[in-house]
């Protein structure tokens, strides 16, 4: 089998993972595709080392994360200042409540959808400032300090944003806290 064919197989094995990482951070399909392409172009340069390495998944995820964050920071710095002024109520999760489903039909609407699709959609609707640290913490397994370092913000801001992001997700998914330490979703 030629190198190109082997690489194509390798790419097909990992493309969903890389694309998911980029898509959840960027929430824009064409940008996520660009980042995924760039990740695999870089992987091709090191294909000899990566092939058969147990750390290949981690390497691809790290590169996808870094490229996505670079992409975000290129645009974010231009309007973050004003976007943060406009977020209003800190408990509102940075996005207007009208984005959520109406009380009366929220249950039906969520029931009608696939649970994962609902979570995915809720995650994508979070403001970037909350979604990115939330994804890095829960999906990429980074610690608060690492996230603060990667995003170039204070530790306190990371914790606050993640906390607000969780709260916003809880509201969007209509999760309710049960006294016996379990949460249930109405979806």
């Amino acid at each position, binding site marked *: 089998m030629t190198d*190109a064919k082997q*690489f*194509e197989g390798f*790419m*097909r094995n990992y*493309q*969903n*993972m*890389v*694309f*998911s990482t980029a*898509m*959840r951070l960027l*929430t824009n*399909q064409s940008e996520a*595709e660009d980042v*995924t*392409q760039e990740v*695999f*172009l870089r992987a*091709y*340069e090191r294909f000899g080392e990566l092939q058969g390495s147990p750390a290949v998944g981690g390497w691809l995820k790290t590169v996808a994360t870094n490229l996505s964050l670079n992409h975000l920071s290129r645009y974010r710095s*231009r*309007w973050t*200042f*004003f*976007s943060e002024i*406009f977020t209003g109520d800190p408990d509102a999760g940075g996005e207007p409540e009208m*984005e959520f489903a109406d009380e009366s039909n929220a249950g039906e609407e969520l029931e009608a959808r696939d649970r*994962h699709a609902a*979570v*995915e959609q809720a*995650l*994508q*609707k979070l403001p970037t400032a909350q979604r990115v640290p*939330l*994804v890095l913490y*829960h*999906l990429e397994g980074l610690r608060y300090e690492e996230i603060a370092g990667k995003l170039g913000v204070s530790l306190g801001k990371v914790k606050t944003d993640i*906390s607000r992001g*969780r*709260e916003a*997700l*809880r509201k969007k*998914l209509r*999760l309710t*806290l049960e006294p016996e*330490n*379990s*949460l249930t*979703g109405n979806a």
Partner: protein
Amino acid sequence: MNPDYNKQLEAAISRELKALPELTAPAVLANRVMAALEQRARVPWYRHSWQMWPVVLQAAALVVLLVLFGGLCVAGWELSQAEATTLALHRVGEWFSGLSMIENTFKVLVSAAVLVVKKLGTGFIVTCLVAAGIGYAMCVGLGTVYFRLAFAKR
């Protein structure tokens, strides 16, 4: 918020997010990457960045550059010692004598500006600068509002 609530919420959100399946990459993506790789392979080696060159060529390029640098240093030293160079430098200095006229004009303009500031008062100048700053901030703000409205998630 009590710590128990935060822990429960963290666990629940973690469960929800970790349960998410991977998103499916577009079918054309693999073909796109392979096409980009083929295109890259067609580009001759000298059009790639230096890091991508074959090791032998990297070493050769390094040697050539070092030799060139050494040659330039030696030639520079030799030239600086020659009488002809002194003469040439003197001539070059003459060409640039016209620059003193520009310097004089600039000095006149600066002194005129100082006079204007004294006449109008610093308050007026500061007000003008503040107005310009506010105008700039308004442009940035309106641009940001437009950006957010245009690209708002619906």
